[in-house]
């Protein structure tokens, strides 16, 4: 389920139009994930290869350094883990985290 409240038929723009630009950020695709990328801070060299390859702009970078992964949008495709030259990213079963985080399956 998306975190956006679902509106009724009288509340939405007609014709399926989306009236604001750049709103895909509000659509949280993280719930699609079955595998979660987990980064090892010790192994990471901040080469930014994962940032280059991530198709969902989910690698958070500040001042040229990787700060973390945007799990609200990461779909768990695993490209970052496959491309990481330092093998610093491991794909783990999402269920382990969901149980811990108390998210209903």
């Amino acid at each position, binding site marked *: 389920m998306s975190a956006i409240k679902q509106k009724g*038929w009288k509340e*939405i723009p*007609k*014709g*399926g139009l*989306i*009236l*604001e*630009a750049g709103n895909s950020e509000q659509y949280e695709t993280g719930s699609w994930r079955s595998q979660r990328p987990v980064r090892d801070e010790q192994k990471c060299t901040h080469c930014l290869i994962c940032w280059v390859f991530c198709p969902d702009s989910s690698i958070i970078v500040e001042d040229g350094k990787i700060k973390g992964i945007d799990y609200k949008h990461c779909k768990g495709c695993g490209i970052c883990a496959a491309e990481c030259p330092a093998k610093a990213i491991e794909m783990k079963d999402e269920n382990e985290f969901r149980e811990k985080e108390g998210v209903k399956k």
Partner: protein
Amino acid sequence: MSTKTVAITGNGAAAYAFKQINPDVVAAYPITPQTDLVQSFSQYVADGLVHTELITVESEHSAMSACVGAAAAGGRVMTATSANGLALMFEILYIAASSKLPIVMPVVNRALSGPINIHCDHSDTMAARDAGWIQIYSENAQEAYDNIIQAVRIAENMKVRLPVMVMYDGFIISHGIDRVDFLDDTTVHDFVGKYQPNYPLLDIDKPLTFGPLDLYDYYFEHKRQQAEDINNSKPVILEIAKGFREISGREYGLFESYHLEDAETAIVVLSSAAGTTKTVVDELRGKGRKVGLLKPRIFRPFPYMEIAQALSHLKAIAILDRSVSFGGFGGPLFTEIRSAMMEFGKAPQNINIIFGLGGRDINQQDITGIYDQLDEIVKSGKVKERIQYLGVRE
């Protein structure tokens, strides 16, 4: 108001309506019997009598796609087609309606292949009845001209904003020469007014998205909106007809009643066959027979309660369909009216007559025969054969 009376074909009258409306964009592909509508209009374009951008495309799928693009950009857009051309547009018809683009399209009714046939029946537009377009059927060239002009206002009305198809019968009306009263250019220009697009894509200060993916979480809500908007068009159609009467002196409603009020039996039929039926009604009335006619004008949205009410006092009716819904309980018009009469709670005896497929003529004797059969039904109280195929050789 000043008018000019001319002798002209249905396609000529439709092309003249296009000229007077002067749309921003027309994207069309030729198909019999629509061809000389667009051909005549392209002459107006070549002569510089309109400002329209005429886009010649390689198919009807492209024609309707170009219309969708031009309408989304913010233009007033028209096209025209027939039969297989309409079938080729099918995918984009739904997109035009669901995107709420007020495109106006005359459809010159022709039988769908196969076997291939170029003559009139209503299989083409009846197949498109659930595409979300408003559908208006015209009896003759005058009505085709008048309905095309009114269709612009209906489509663009803020409460509606939906595409509109205007039908007239292939060859019978499209190529037959009729007497038509044309309004003058200024009257039509003022009547259709200036088009105000809701969300023009060319307004680069307000970027927006047309046609995004719409899955199980919102698709249904958008369909619910479409159902509401097409039903809301009914009072709008009547209001625009009222305004049109003021400029033309000609009356339009959701349907036309001809000697129906005191009739005992009646025929319900769309388009040009209604004209032949009127002649028969006059003749039989002259002999003292209480016969009438109901000619639906608006098929989508279907004015079900109004029609059921108008037919409720009759003893027997014949509903004529110029198309087949294979495997269905009668033709599309029959199904709608039978269902509507159930809602109204009072129904005359009724039969369905499938006629005129592939341009097969229906003549006055055929229609007189139908009224005779209705008299039999009234006398005996029995319907022998509910669904009949008029004039098919055994």
